[in-house]
Each structure stands twice: as structure tokens, then as C-alpha cells.
């Protein structure tokens, strides 16, 4: 699933901010349309949040929630999104897997700051 790392990281960011709506909609979708819509909305919201995020001394973007600093990953690339949606069209199970990974604890300490 490393090919959808960007999407997983973005969804994980929403999970960290206790917004489960996107990950639930992507993970519970019965057909590809809801995945498309949820991903579109997630990307739209994520861009909005990035725009107003603070920048730390290392150039990483972050927001503060309940006193915790949450780093923002990069925006998933167009190719990644294209590949993901194409895969979801042939097998909705891919969406479920991505959502499950987003809910899981990351396997190693990630440099979630992403791009600057």
C-alpha cells in the first residue's frame, strides 16, 4: 500500500484531529462514487487547513488542537489520486484497506511534515 501513502497520511491527519468523517465514508463505501466524493471533499478541506496552518522553524506545517501540535503531511499527488480512484473502480476493497491503514498506528516514526 506504499503507493497510496500520501492519501493514507492525509486521512491519518484527519483521524488525529478526531474528524472521522472522511475515513469512515471511504472505508464504508459500497461503490466507488462515495469514495470519489469523500476524497474530493477531504482534499478540499485539507488544502483549506494547510493554507491557514502555522509553519515551524523547520518549515513544517502544523496545527494545534487541544494543546497538541499536529504536523500536516503533504498533499497527495495527482498521480497517486488517479491511481487510487482507478483501483477503487475495479475493487472497492482498496478503499477499505486505505481507510484501515489510516486508522492504524503508523509503523515507524514518520516525518509527517511532508513538503514545505
Amino acid at each position, binding site marked *: 500500500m506504499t503507493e497510496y501513502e500520501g492519501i493514507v497520511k492525509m486521512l491519518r491527519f484527519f483521524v488525529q484531529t478526531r*474528524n472521522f*468523517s472522511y475515513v469512515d465514508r471511504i472505508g464504508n463505501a459500497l*461503490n466507488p*462514487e*462515495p469514495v470519489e*466524493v469523500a476524497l474530493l*471533499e477531504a482534499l*478540499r*478541506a*485539507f*488544502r*483549506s*487547513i*494547510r*493554507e*491557514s496552518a502555522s509553519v515551524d522553524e523547520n518549515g513544517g506545517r502544523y496545527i494545534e488542537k487541544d494543546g497538541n501540535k499536529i504536523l500536516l503531511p503533504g498533499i497527495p499527488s495527482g498521480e497517486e489520486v488517479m491511481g487510487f480512484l482507478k483501483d477503487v473502480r475495479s475493487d472497492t476493497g482498496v478503499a477499505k484497506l486505505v481507510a484501515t491503514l489510516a486508522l492504524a498506528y503508523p509503523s515507524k516514526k514518520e516525518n509527517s511534515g511532508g513538503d514545505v
Partner: protein
Amino acid sequence: MFLSVGVRFEANVEALNMVETAGNYGKHRRVPYLVEEDGRLKTVYVPAMSGESLAHAYQEHLVNEALSADLPVCDDCWRMEFYKSMNKVHLKKKVDPIPDDPKKIEEAIVKACVVEDVGGFLYAEKPPVRRSSAFQVSYALPVKSVALFATSEPQLHARHAQMDASSKKGNASEQMIYYVETGTALYGFTFNLDLDAVGVSAITSKPILDENEIKKRREASLKALFRMLSSGQFGAKLSRFFPVGGITELVVSVTEHPFVVTSPIYDDYLEKTQRRLKVLESFGEEYLFTAATGEKVPEEALKEAIDYLHEKGAF
């Protein structure tokens, strides 16, 4: 007696039900919708309003109607904060000490508050006590035949702040732009009111209040519905996004026992409802059916239903 209302309303550029805000983007509620196109079913996402949002508005009107009829409303509901005796802290304001018997708890709440009598409550302690709402409301959804024309569209707005160079901090901007997603559709929803449940225990099915009080509460419940529909005071962001449009059609049925009008999201809902009622009639049940689709305005149809209920001795 059971009242059921089907409402169709046109709302252009409304923000009646907003869900999360992400950064500077406020989103309209949207739901997946199954529509038929060229003989095939497909899922489309359409703007919608939740039943919760409509129910909240109805209960606000109920507070006002109850107060003007000198009926009891608890302090929480009076402030339009519908906690509904959810825990000891809120229940203690109505009855202290709190009784152990669920029947006694229900009685105390119903006596103290019309909103919780009509709108139900959930006391989530030991023992838990729950009362179903006497009124029911659906989501407002676009009418099926035109659902494909429903839109939700973000509108750009700006908020200004006056700042001189000295007070400017970091990269703070003098104007903040934000987007509000607005919906446009012909919506339909259903509202039901079980008048027999007002003032009656949900546990024992016996009246908690005397007949006179029950009749007054029924009347207040109907007036609240009338006021809500007539004033268009439901949903969010009315101060700047008051929907352009209004009720286009409305049907009402009053039956002796529960009966729900066919959902107004279907184009033939009026005929279907009438046909269904004819069957009830053949079982010997009396009913009233009235519709505001052409000549009649919605208020006239609702008034007819209220008059009929009055005649029947419901209040």
C-alpha cells in the same frame, strides 16, 4: 388523532444545514441519492437538511407557543437548549430528590415541560428513562424528478479588519476570504404528529395530565408547526442566506390512527396519498385530507386541519 404533513419547498441559494468547517470552507450537508436516468439507477450527491435540524426548529417554535399559552417549559428548553433531562444535573432542576421509579421520573418531566412531553427525552442514568417523540420529521431531500438539477455551490465572501501597520501581526491579512457552500433545490419532507401521545405516559399508556391540559398542549403543538412553516424560521444561516423561494405545495392528512402521507419527493404523492386514504375509508376510518397545490395557500390547508381537529374534540 394522527396528523401527517408533506411539504415541498423551493429554496434557492440556502445554507440551511451546514456541516463541518475546514479552514475557510463551510460545507453544506449532502447525501447520496438514488435516481433513475435512462432506465438505469445511479447515485448522485444532493444537498439536504437533516431531520434533527428541522426538529430543533420545531421545538423552538413549540417553546414560544407553549409560553404564550401559559404552559410549562423547563429552564433548559426555555433557553432553546434541548438537553431533555439527559442526566441528574438537568433532571434535578425539575424534581429533587430524583425518584427511583421510572414512571415517577417520566411524570415529573412531562408535567414540567411541554417540549419534553411532545419532543421526547432520554434520561441516561440509573434507571434510564426514555420517552419517544410524539412528532417525527424526515430529512428534507430534493424532489426525485428534479434531483439531478439540485446544486451545491461555494460562494466567496470576505470579512474585513481595519489594521494599521503597527497592529499588523506576522502575515495576518486585512481581509479574510471564506467560502460558504450553498444549496439550491426543490425539497420535500414529511412531518408527523401523534396527538394521542401528548400528555400520556410512554410507560403505562395512561394520561399523566388532565384532559384540559392535554388539549392545550395539542393546540400548542399544532400552532408551532403552523408558525414554523408559515415563517420559514427553520435551518441555519438565515440572517444572510434566507432561502429565496418558499413552500410550493403542502398536503395534510388527519386520521384516527397513524397514517403517513406519501413522501413529497415523488411527483404523484398527492394522488397516491388520496388513494391510500380511500382504502382506510373502506375500513370505516374517518379522515381529513387537504392540499395546498393550486388555489389554496399552505396556511389555509393547515388551518383546515386545525379546524377539523377542533371539531373532532382533539382540543
